[in-house]
């Protein structure tokens, strides 16, 4: 089914950033094509079962939760709360919104379907991208070529940078943030949702590893009740590895852990088998080199930019060791500015980026990579790319 399509802009990747980029751009009237390699929108929030929206709320937890980025981040928050009935939760020094990956897939789909000038193509990946010298771009996909004036890379991996020969930022793969593998069990006794029980569970897992009943990888497993009654999510951080290795490790781990819990705890006797994520929750790969590279210092010091287009509110959450997350909070509990230049290519006019592949250092990424912030950078990149193609926000 070869066909050539003309659009004002193309968005690569339908995760939290790409979704918001495409919808925000389409709302200006621009004709947008969004290509997504999987079968659904939502990225890590659906495929990887990441079940909390982080980075949505103002960092001052002495105040009631307040959305820091208007527009689509606020819309998605409202839609999710209406579906789950769950509001923001204070976890230590941050607010998060528990989210249901299945509900998010529908919310994302409905947001996209509501835009008449947005076309979503599933199961589509780029095989080549050419252009960038002022005459627009051609994206080659298995489903035909897409000609567009502006391009948004929301691939999380700066996929377009490689095709266009642009500079990518990265650290050595083994220094990358660790990835997460998430699975859930349903039909769990409600007693298992209590915090006290979950602590006993965590201790049992640690003892199980020490006794050789569980693989070493099970050690860093956190469990959290889902917004779905009777469901618990299990999240395990894994050492950096290729996606297929992470997936294989994760599936074996889910199998071992669910069997272990069923043997040890009557609360799990009637539980389902493991319901694994379709993909590992990768936290870091490659980023674009933009007109500005956002640093941890910018975020921590609350540096303001003349071209601020989005706000980061999540602390710098480094997950580099088996000991779990290391959090660095902003110096003052206020949202930190993200400049448009960090979403704009320094080398190729008409290229914008959003989400996990924005122009940021390894440390700054550890704050801006979360979904709440990806909604915001996506929305900002969508508006900027539409403006580049001649469309202004209404």
């Amino acid at each position: 089914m070869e066909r050539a399509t003309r659009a004002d802009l193309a968005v690569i990747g339908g995760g939290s950033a790409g979704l918001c980029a495409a919808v925000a751009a389409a709302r200006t009237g621009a004709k947008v094509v969004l290509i997504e390699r999987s079968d659904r929108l939502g990225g890590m929030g659906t495929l990887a079962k990441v079940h909390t929206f982080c980075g949505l709320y103002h960092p001052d937890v002495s105040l009631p939760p307040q959305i820091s980025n208007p527009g689509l981040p606020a819309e998605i928050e409202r839609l999710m709360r209406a579906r789950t009935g769950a509001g923001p939760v204070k976890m230590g020094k941050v607010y998060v919104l528990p989210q249901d990956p299945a509900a998010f897939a529908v919310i994302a789909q409905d947001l996209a379907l509501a835009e008449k000038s947005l076309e979503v193509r599933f199961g589509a990946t780029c095989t080549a991208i050419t252009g960038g010298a002022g005459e627009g771009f051609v994206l080659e996909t298995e489903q035909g070529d897409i000609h567009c004036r502006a391009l948004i890379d929301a691939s999380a991996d700066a996929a377009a940078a490689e095709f266009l020969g642009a500079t990518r930022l990265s650290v050595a793969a083994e220094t990358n943030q660790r990835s997460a593998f998430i699975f859930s069990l349903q039909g769990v006794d409600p007693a298992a949702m209590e915090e006290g029980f979950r602590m006993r569970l965590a201790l049992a897992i640690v003892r199980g590893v020490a006794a050789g009943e569980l693989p070493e990888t099970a050690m860093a497993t956190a469990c959290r009740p889902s917004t779905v009654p009777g469901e618990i999510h299990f999240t395990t951080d894994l050492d950096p590895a290729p996606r297929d290795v992470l997936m294989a490790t994760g599936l074996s781990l889910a199998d071992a852990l669910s069997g272990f819990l069923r043997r040890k705890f009557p609360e799990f006797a009637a539980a389902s088998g493991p319901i694994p994520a379709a993909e590992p929750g990768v936290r870091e790969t490659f980023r674009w080199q933009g007109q500005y590279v956002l640093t941890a210092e910018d975020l921590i010091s609350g540096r303001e930019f003349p071209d601020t287009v989005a706000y980061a509110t999540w602390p710098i959450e480094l997950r580099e060791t088996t000991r779990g997350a290391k959090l660095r909070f902003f110096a003052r509990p206020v949202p930190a500015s993200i400049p448009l230049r960090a979403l704009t290519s320094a080398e190729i006019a008409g290229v914008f980026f959003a989400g996990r592949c924005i122009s940021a250092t390894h440390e700054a990424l550890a704050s801006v990579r979360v979904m709440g912030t990806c909604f915001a950078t996506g929305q900002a990149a969508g508006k900027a790319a539409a403006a580049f193609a001649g469309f202004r926000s209404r």
Partner: protein
Amino acid sequence: MSDLITRIRTLIDGGLFPLAESVCDDTDLHAEGLDSLMLMQLILLLEQEFGVAIGPEDLDRENFSSLTNIAALVRRKGNTG
């Protein structure tokens, strides 16, 4: 007692997460970032360092909510001199 607290502080600071200087003996560690995962790591560290055995009955958030409370737990479990 204060020696014990110093040892626990060093254990957490060196092995789990950096403790700000503002963290005193009674500061709420959960608010400082001690999550359930770190708590399990902390239990393993305490068991190694002090030769105590911490069981499911000790898994009360309150037991781990400050350096003072952790020290009290370790003392209750014995072997701390």
